């Protein structure tokens, strides 16, 4: 798989992840800065690092499953690995500018 194709696949994964909303904040996980990392390798294996707004959140397992499903449906993805992490803990500063006007300015977005 070429670098361009990998990048396209990665963008498609991000787009699909925008379908998953945090139930409490009502916004998608990508813009909320809850998707920490998205990696896609040559074989179409995706590895996602994500968090939730609070550690111990009762929605955590549902959100992790939802992220898995949203990535799995992307054409070209052969394997999905989702890691839930609280290192670093999420903070409102991670919210991206796209929805920042609702929550105050944030520098957010995923780390590339």
């Amino acid at each position, binding site marked *: 798989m070429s670098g361009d194709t990998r990048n396209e696949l990665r963008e498609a994964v991000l787009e699909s992840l925008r379908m998953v909303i945090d139930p409490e904040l009502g916004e998608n996980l990508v813009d909320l800065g809850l998707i920490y990392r998205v990696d896609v390798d040559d074989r179409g294996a995706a590895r996602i690092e994500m968090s939730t707004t609070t550690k111990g959140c009762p929605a955590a397992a549902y959100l992790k499953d939802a992220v898995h499903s949203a990535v799995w449906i992307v054409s070209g993805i052969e394997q999905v690995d989702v890691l839930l992490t609280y290192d670093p803990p999420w903070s409102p500063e991670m919210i991206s500018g796209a929805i920042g006007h*609702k929550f105050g300015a944030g520098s957010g977005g995923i780390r590339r």
Partner: protein
Amino acid sequence: MIGASLSRWTMAFFAVSLVCLILAETLMAVGYGFPSHAIEAPETLVVVHLVAIGWLSLLMCGALFQFVPVLVAKPLWRPFLALPVLACLMAGLGFLLAGFLQLAGTLESDLPFLILGGCLLPLGFAMAIWILGETLWRARPLPLPARFVATGLICLLVLAFLGSLFAHLLSGWIPAERLAAERGRLVPLHAAMGIGGWLTFSAVGVSYRLLPMFMLAPDHERATSRWVWLSGSAALLALGLGVLLELALGASTSLSFGVAGICGLVALVLYGTDLAFFYRHRKRRQLELNIKASGGAFAALFASALLCGVLVASGTLERHVGALVYLVFFGWLSGLALSQLYKIVPFLTWLECYGPVMGRKPTPRVQDLVAERRDGPWFILYFAGVFAATGALLAEELTLFRLGSAVVCIATLAIVVELVLARRLANVSASLRLPEGTRLPRLFMAASGGR
């Protein structure tokens, strides 16, 4: 899994507690209990325990079974014991109330209702303390909000022991004359452990987690918050030790009560600064109704402290203690509880119904389960009724108090109807209401598949 699961019985705890609240408010509106009856009369004890145990303690137990795992990021220990806790507390409360009705002469029966209540209630609370205490113990070192809950649970232990003692005394099982003098001192301690320790301390602890979460405010542990816990705990300890020393050695309580008062005041002022900090540093500009309505509860908390100070300074505390307790019960504790239920019930309902299809089907937001614009006035009416009823008690205007209580009861009923509508997904648009793979949640019990 890092995280918590849906507590299966929490909604049942909430349902029973709300029924008790409406029952108590109706009794007050029709003139049953204080101020129509004396403050120590069995009729008043019916209303007070319906509120303190039936409404607030059941609600707190149900809420803690759901939120202690969130506070410590560990699953609840032996969650299946929640149902026996509910059964014991419901039966125990029923027997206790029947016992009070026996004392009032309303219920004629030879059955030892007070003894049964005085055994089942401590058993239920002991199980709740066991479940929550073990969950906290396994999660050491505890984050600050959980330390508040731990202190609240210790107070619950003292509260339940004293409550059981009183029930046995009132039943005549322990000869009343043996502890006649001590009872006068232990009743205020019982009330302080219940209102200040178990209910207020636990509520403050949970608020330290929920408020930053709902307002998107910084939730790191602040020095002021640590001092709230330390000074509040010191106040409760000074109160308990003061009464014990008086009973054991005949020592004066003035020093310990003075220390308790100062420590309590410090805790309250610092809690106020923390609330202001969350509000000022919040990222969520448009506050939701649960947070706006909580403002009424916080106003009632600080108004209660002010009222307490004025009553102590004017030497009229004994005369107006009913008004003070009413404001704390209905303004602070019930106001906060109803406000937060307005968020918690839709949130848990959302998770139960839409959690399993999240990311696979379009789903509504949690906010779509309620109609904030329609419900805001009910909260305004609720707090207006509470403050009016408190004023009526201070002015000793019985009719006005019943009118205020009726307003509070109507507003509560309306809020409860809205919670039922949220649970039935009645406010969600038809296109999003029940996507394939979902089903309507049961009113009183979360699905067993909840994680």
